[in-house]
C-alpha cells in the first residue's frame, strides 16, 4: 500500500482556509457553496428579466389590436423570454441547487472539479450578456421562436451569430456543470452510501446530468449547421441543395425533448425530498422512483417527433411517436402515485416548502394530462401551435419546475443562511402564486381549444375575454414574485436562528441536516459513515 501512503501525505492541509476577502471570493471561487449561491442569484436575476419580458407580452395581449409592442418586438420578446427562462433561469437554478446540496447530501467536502465548476458558472453571465446585447443590434434580437426553426430564423439580422454563439457558450457551461455533477456523485459519496441509498435529489440530478451531456452537444451541432447555412453556403436545411428544413426540427427536438426532462427531473427530486419530510414518513417506493426516473430519461430519447406531428412524417412515424410518448405516462404515473402514497396516513404539516410541493403535485399533473392530450397525433393536428400548447408547457414549467425551485429554496434556505425565512410571507407568496398562476395559464387552455394561435401579437375579438383574464393573472403573478425576492434578501440578512435540523419536529432525513446551520464553509472534511 505504498501508493496510497504517499498520496495521503500530500493531500493534507489544503482544506482549512476560509473564504477569500472581497471580490476575489466570487471571481476566483472554488467553493461549492459560493458557486451555488452565484448560480442561484444569477438564476433569480434571469427569472426577473425573462419575467419582465413576459409582462410586456401579457400587456400586449391584454386587449385585441397592437398597443404596446410592434409585432417584430413582440416576437423578439417571446423568443428571448423562452431562451432566458429555459437556459438562464430554470437550468442554472437547478445547477445552483445541485452545487449547494449534492456535496452536502452525499457527504463530500466539495464538488469533484471545483475550478471547472467556477468556469461553468462564469461563462453564463457572459453568454446571457451577449444574448441580451442582441436587443440593441441592427435587426433586433432573434424573433423566430426559441426553437430557432429555419428558414425563418435565417432572416435574423446581426443578432443571428450572437444568439448562436450564446447558445454554444450555454451548452459548454451545461456540459461542464453536468460532468462535475456526475463525477461528484460517482466518486465522492461517503463510505457506505451505495447507489440505492442516495437521496432522490441526487439520483434525479445524476440522470439529468447524463441527459445534459448527451443532448447539449446535439444542440450545438444544430445551431452550427444554422450558422454555416447562413454564412458559409451549406445546404443542411435548404431543399434546393438536397437538405431539408424539417431535418432541423428532428435534430433540434432530439435535443429538445430530453431538455424538457432536464428541467423537470431535478424538480421530481426536490419534491421527493420535501413530501416525506413534512409527511413524517419515508418516501413510498424509493426503488420504483429511481427506476421511474431512469425510464423517463430513456423514453425522452425516442419521443422527440411528437413536437412535429403537423410538419410531415410517414404515418408509421406518427404512430410510433404517439405511442412512445404515451408510454411516458406510466413512469410519471408511478411518481405521482408514490408521492401521494407517501402522504397516505402521514402526519402532514403545511410549511411553505410543503405547500409549494403539494401545489407542484396537483398543477404539474394538470400539465401532464394536457401533455397526454397533445400526444394523440390526430388531436394534436387541432392543438398544434395554439395556446393549448402554451398552457400545457407553462403548467409543467411554472407550477412544475419553477414551483419546485421555490419549494427547494424555502426548504434549504435556513440551512444555507442559518436564519429562518418569514413563514407568513412565504405562505402569502405561495397562495398568491398558486391562485394567479392558474388565473394566468388556465384560460389559455380555452383560448387554444378555441383556435387562438401562439406567437401572434394581435387576435380576433372572440379571444378578448380570456386574454384579459390571463393578462391580469400574469401581472399579479409577476408582482407576487417580489415577495419571494424580499423574503430571500431579508432571510440572508438576518432572522430567527435556524437549528441544525431546521425542521426539528419533522426530523428530516439526510446528511445535510447533520451539519450546522449555516452549513460550514467546507462541508464534510471527514466523510460521514452511512449505514
Amino acid at each position: 500500500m505504498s501508493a496510497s501512503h504517499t498520496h495521503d501525505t500530500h493531500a493534507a492541509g489544503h482544506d482549512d482556509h476560509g473564504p477569500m476577502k472581497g471580490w476575489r471570493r466570487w471571481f476566483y471561487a472554488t467553493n461549492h457553496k459560493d458557486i451555488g449561491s452565484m448560480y442561484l442569484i444569477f438564476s433569480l436575476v434571469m427569472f426577473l428579466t425573462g419575467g419582465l419580458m413576459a409582462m410586456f407580452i401579457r400587456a400586449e395581449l391584454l386587449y385585441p389590436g397592437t398597443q404596446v409592442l410592434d409585432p417584430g418586438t413582440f416576437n423578439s420578446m417571446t423568443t428571448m423570454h423562452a431562451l432566458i427562462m429555459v437556459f438562464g433561469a430554470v437550468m442554472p437554478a437547478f445547477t445552483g441547487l445541485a452545487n449547494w446540496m449534492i456535496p452536502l447530501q452525499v457527504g463530500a467536502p466539495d464538488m469533484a472539479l471545483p475550478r471547472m465548476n467556477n468556469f461553468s458558472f462564469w461563462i453564463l453571465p457572459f453568454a446571457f450578456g451577449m444574448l441580451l446585447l442582441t436587443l440593441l443590434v441592427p435587426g433586433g434580437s432573434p424573433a423566430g421562436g426559441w426553437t430557432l426553426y429555419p428558414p425563418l430564423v435565417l432572416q435574423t439580422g446581426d443578432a443571428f451569430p450572437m444568439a448562436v454563439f450564446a447558445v454554444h457558450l450555454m451548452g459548454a457551461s451545461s456540459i461542464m456543470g453536468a460532468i462535475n455533477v456526475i463525477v461528484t456523485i460517482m466518486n465522492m459519496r461517503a463510505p457506505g452510501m451505495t447507489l440505492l441509498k442516495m437521496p432522490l435529489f441526487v439520483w434525479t440530478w445524476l440522470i439529468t446530468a447524463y441527459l445534459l451531456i448527451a443532448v447539449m452537444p446535439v444542440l450545438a451541432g444544430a445551431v452550427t449547421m444554422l450558422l454555416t447555412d447562413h454564412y458559409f453556403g451549406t445546404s443542411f436545411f435548404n431543399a434546393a441543395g438536397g437538405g431539408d428544413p424539417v431535418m432541423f426540427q428532428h435534430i433540434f427536438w432530439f435535443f429538445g425533448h430530453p431538455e424538457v426532462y432536464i428541467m423537470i427531473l431535478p424538480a421530481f427530486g426536490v419534491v421527493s425530498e420535501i413530501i416525506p419530510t413534512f409527511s413524517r414518513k419515508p418516501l413510498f417506493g424509493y426503488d420504483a422512483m429511481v427506476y421511474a426516473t431512469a425510464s423517463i430519461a430513456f423514453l425522452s430519447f425516442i419521443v422527440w417527433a411528437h413536437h412535429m406531428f403537423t410538419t410531415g412524417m410517414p404515418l408509421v412515424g406518427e404512430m410510433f411517436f404517439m405511442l412512445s410518448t404515451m408510454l411516458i405516462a406510466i413512469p410519471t404515473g408511478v411518481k405521482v402515485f408514490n408521492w401521494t402514497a407517501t402522504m397516505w396516513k402521514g402526519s402532514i404539516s403545511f410549511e411553505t416548502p410543503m405547500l409549494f410541493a403539494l401545489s407542484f403535485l396537483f398543477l404539474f399533473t394538470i400539465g401532464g394530462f394536457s401533455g397526454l392530450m397533445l400526444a394523440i397525433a390526430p388531436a394534436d393536428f387541432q392543438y398544434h401551435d395554439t395556446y393549448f400548447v402554451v398552457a400545457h408547457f407553462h403548467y409543467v414549467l411554472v407550477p412544475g419546475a419553477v414551483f419546485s425551485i421555490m419549494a427547494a429554496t424555502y426548504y434549504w434556505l435556513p440551512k444555507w443562511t442559518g436564519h429562518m425565512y418569514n413563514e407568513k410571507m412565504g405562505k402569502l407568496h405561495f397562495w398568491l402564486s398558486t391562485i394567479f398562476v392558474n388565473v394566468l395559464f388556465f384560460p389559455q387552455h380555452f383560448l387554444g381549444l378555441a383556435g387562438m394561435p401562439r406567437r401572434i401579437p394581435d387576435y380576433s375579438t372572440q379571444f378578448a375575454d380570456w386574454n384579459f383574464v390571463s393578462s391580469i393573472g400574469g401581472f399579479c403573478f409577476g408582482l407576487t414574485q417580489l415577495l419571494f425576492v424580499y423574503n430571500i434578501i431579508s432571510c440572508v440578512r438576518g432572522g430567527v436562528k435556524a437549528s441544525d435540523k431546521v425542521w426539528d419536529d419533522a426530523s428530516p432525513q439526510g446528511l445535510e441536516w447533520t451539519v450546522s446551520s449555516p452549513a460550514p464553509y467546507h462541508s464534510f472534511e471527514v466523510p460521514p459513515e452511512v449505514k
Partner: protein
Amino acid sequence: MAHAHHDHDSAGKYYVPHASHWPIVGSIALFITMFGASQWLNNGISSMFWVGILCVLGLFFGWFRDVINESVAGTYNQAVDRSFRMGMMWFIFSEVMFFAAFFGALYYARNIAQPWLSGQGVKFANTLLWQNFTGGWPSNGPAKLGGEFEVIPAFSLPAVNTMILLTSGVTLTIAHHALKENKRGILNLFLALTFLLGFLFVYLQSTEYAEAYHELNLKLSSGIYGSTFFMLTGFHGLHVTIGAIMLTVIWLRSMKGHFSSENHFGFEAVAWYWHFVDVVWLGLFIFVYWL
C-alpha cells in the same frame, strides 16, 4: 499512514484546489472570441476574434501549466485522479454526441430527404417544384447548387489516411506499454511517431481539400454532399489537429521526465482522446467516403 482516515481514500483527503483566476479569465476570453466572431460575420472585422483566440491560447497555457505543476508536486491523490478520469470520459462522450448530430444529418439527408425530394412518400416537393429530380447520392440537390462535382474515392488517399490513423493508434499503445514498464526511450520514440503520423494525416487531408476545391469542384457549398462532407471531415480534422498538439505537449512533458509508470493521467487522457478521433474517422471512412 500518518492520517487517521487513510482508508477513506474516496473522499477523506480529497484535494479541494485553492482559488484560481483561470475560470474567470477563460470566461472573458471565450466571450471576446465569440463576440469577435459575431463581429467578423456581421461586419467583416476580425481583429477582436483573433485577440480572443490569443486569450484562449494564453488561458490553456496558463491553466494547464498550473495544473501540471500541482500534479508534478504530487498534490493530487488517487481520488482526484479518479475524478479526472471520469471527467475526461464524459467529456469524450459529449464529443461523440456532437459528431452524432452531423452523422445524423448525413443519415437523414441520404435516407429521408433524398427519397422525399425525388418523389417517394410525400410527393409535394417533387410534383410542385422539381419534377425531374431523381435523387441518388452523391447529390447537391435538385437545384444542383455549386454545379457538377466529383467525389473523392474511398480507396485512394482516404484509405491511406485510414492506415495512418490506425497505425498511430498502435504506436500510441506501444508507447503506453513502454510507459507502464518504465522504458522511457521507447515511450518517447513512439509518442513522437504518433504525433508525427497525426500531423501527416492533417497534411494529407489538406491536400485532399485542395484537390476537392481546385480539381473536383467539390466545395462546402456543393449542396448537401458538400455540406456533410466538409463539416464532418472538417470537424474531425480539427479534432485530429487538437489531438496531435496535445500529443506533442505530452511528448515534451515525457521528455522532461514527467509521468511515472503508475501515475500518468495526462498521458492516458490524451490517448483516449486520440482513440476517439480514430474511431470517428472509421465512421467517416465508411459512411462518408465508402458507402
